[in-house]
């Protein structure tokens, strides 16, 4: 079973920042970005980005270099992103909402890290790195001898533009690299297919480290529109909602779980700013249609709701579905639709053979969006990038580990995971990553983490912990994890246990642990 995306020619050099530069040339006085009462035009943002690109090049960090960006949402963030691309380098977003210990772990996984951009507020978080830390606010001014024009470093579509961290099954986060051609193709598809245009105002409501945030950050600059950034380290739905009305936002990019909160806010307060948007682009985790169904079916909801699916390894978005006011049936997953331009979805069985139409298979992605793999070494996940012969022609593809099928109408539906990986509030989490952090805490002898639905129906992590002493010091363990993991990765529940049950093969018996959760009358009791 193959779903084929439309074939669309890309320019000879499909390089994302060239499109931004063309807008800076054509509409220099248009506002590129608003943040915290400040604004910057395309010409000004372009000049600032050029200035930073020269700083990188003067230090020898050009094509192929990796630049860490640990900044809160700000105009400087866009300057750092665009300047890095102009120098021919790739950026790695480092979320300042993460604990310093987690950032230290991530920084150690970036090969040949050239430099880190930080602000006075974020610099202490990355002080563990031996790489140089640069504050854009303290760079030499425009009079420092660099021309206003760009450095014109040659960049090809195959060069890496950014790399984001995803949770890994080995317990070590994987640094997944994306190519300019894939990113250009994605942004070009969003722009053309949905008519995103100049003069439109966009708002991003997601954490900087998320894969979907990279697309959301760049989409308005790619189509000549205006980007609005929330001056908030944490996703702030109330502030976001206020910005919708204060700034006449037309397009919002967010994770599904954030959309529920925006909808709740609008429903509770009786507003219609969300319902009257032009576009809402959301995804990053399975959609709970019932959370938005009533709101979406209201007469006043005229917004186009684009439910999107993809994986970080393949440039974030691979498919999109226009919900168009229809209510998915009870308990039915909302489709994620059809592939992006130059992208194919293949449904394969375990032997990597295509399944028959309507049958279930592993969702595999082929085409322009397939990324450059992992920058921090091989490991079992690398095997997900593979090659399969389709009609006698070898195709490079990525096995997502998601299961799905294609409806009679030709839309992809995602059913769930083949493995233990889970999305919690838009963040992809492998339980092994959490187990590793737990295992490092004093007071923890052994731990296993399983995924089970909470009362709300949303996925939740439960940690089974064999304590060093007789009793599990839950508060201490929780606080220890909060110092070493992003908040979304900290389990909701901790259960003390005498030993971790093993299967006959000697592996953690996750089914037995799930049974313990289901049968336990009190989640805080001792299981097994």
């Amino acid at each position, binding site marked *: 079973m193959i779903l084929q995306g439309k074939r669309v020619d890309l320019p000879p050099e499909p390089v994302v920042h060239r499109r931004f530069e063309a807008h800076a040339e054509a509409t220099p006085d248009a506002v590129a970005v608003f943040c915290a009462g400040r604004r910057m035009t395309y010409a000004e943002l372009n000049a600032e980005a050029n200035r930073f690109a020269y700083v990188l090049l003067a230090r020898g960090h050009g094509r192929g270099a990796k630049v860490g960006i640990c900044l809160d949402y700000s105009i400087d963030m866009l300057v750092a992103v665009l300047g890095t691309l102009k120098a021919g380098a790739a950026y790695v977003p480092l979320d300042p909402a993460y604990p310093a210990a987690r950032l230290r772990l991530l920084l150690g996984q970036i090969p040949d890290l050239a430099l880190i951009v930080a602000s006075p507020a974020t610099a202490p978080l990355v002080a563990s790195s031996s790489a140089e830390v640069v504050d854009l606010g303290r760079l030499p001014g425009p009079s420092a001898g660099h021309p206003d024009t760009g450095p014109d470093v040659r960049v090809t579509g195959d060069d890496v533009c950014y790399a984001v961290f995803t949770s890994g099954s080995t317990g070590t986060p994987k640094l997944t690299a994306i190519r300019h051609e894939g990113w250009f193709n994605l942004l070009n598809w969003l722009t053309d297919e949905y008519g995103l245009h100049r003069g439109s105002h966009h708002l991003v409501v997601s954490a900087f480290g998320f894969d979907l945030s990279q697309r959301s950050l760049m989409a308005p600059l790619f189509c000549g529109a205006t980007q609005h950034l929330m001056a*908030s*380290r*944490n*996703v*702030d*739905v*109330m*502030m976001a909602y206020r910005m919708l009305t204060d700034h006449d936002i037309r397009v919002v990019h967010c994770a599904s*779980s954030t959309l529920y*909160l925006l909808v*709740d*806010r609008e429903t*509770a307060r009786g507003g219609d700013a969300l319902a009257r948007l032009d576009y809402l682009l959301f995804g990053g985790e399975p959609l709970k249609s019932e959370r938005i169904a009533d709101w979406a079916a209201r007469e006043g909801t005229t917004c186009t709701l684009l439910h999107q699916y993809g994986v970080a390894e393949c440039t974030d978005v691979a498919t999109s579905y226009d919900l168009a006011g229809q209510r998915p049936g009870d308990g039915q997953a909302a489709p994620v639709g059809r592939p992006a331009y130059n992208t194919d979805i293949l449904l394969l069985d375990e032997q990597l053979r295509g399944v028959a139409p309507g049958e279930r298979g592993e969702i595999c992605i082929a085409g322009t969006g397939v990324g450059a793999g992992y920058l921090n070494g091989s490991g079992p996940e690398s095997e997900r990038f593979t090659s399969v012969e389709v009609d006698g022609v070898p195709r490079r593809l990525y096995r997502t580990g998601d299961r799905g099928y294609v409806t009679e109408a030709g839309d992809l539906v995602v059913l769930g995971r083949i493995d233990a990986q889970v999305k919690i*509030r838009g963040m992809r989490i492998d339980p092994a990553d959490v187990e590793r952090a737990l295992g490092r805490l004093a007071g923890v002898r052994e731990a296993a983490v399983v995924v089970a639905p909470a009362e709300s129906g949303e996925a939740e992590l439960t940690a089974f912990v064999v304590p060093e002493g007789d009793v599990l010091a839950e*508060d201490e363990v*929780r*606080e220890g994890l*909060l110092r070493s993991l992003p*908040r*979304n990765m*900290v389990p*909701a*529940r901790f259960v003390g246990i005498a030993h971790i049950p093993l299967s006959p093969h000697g592996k953690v018996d996750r089914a037995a642990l799930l049974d313990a959760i289901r049968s336990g009358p009190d989640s805080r009791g001792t299981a097994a």
Partner: protein
Amino acid sequence: MITDDVRAIWCRELRRDHIADDQNFFALGGQSLIMARIQGAFADELGVEVPMDRLFLNPTIASISAYIGSLDSMAPPHRT
């Protein structure tokens, strides 16, 4: 008392009968969705909009109550 109003909202959203002034939100099992609900409750019930960053910086009943108290004594930039 602001502290009592805040405690009532925290206890409801965190589903606890008792929460001490200095107990940490996250150590009580709190996470961002619960914090977002608390933010909404502060707006709807106490009439004060507290940015999420402020809520995360003040993860105890004592500190967030003090913050809200300081808003009350100023010109109300975020009163709804």
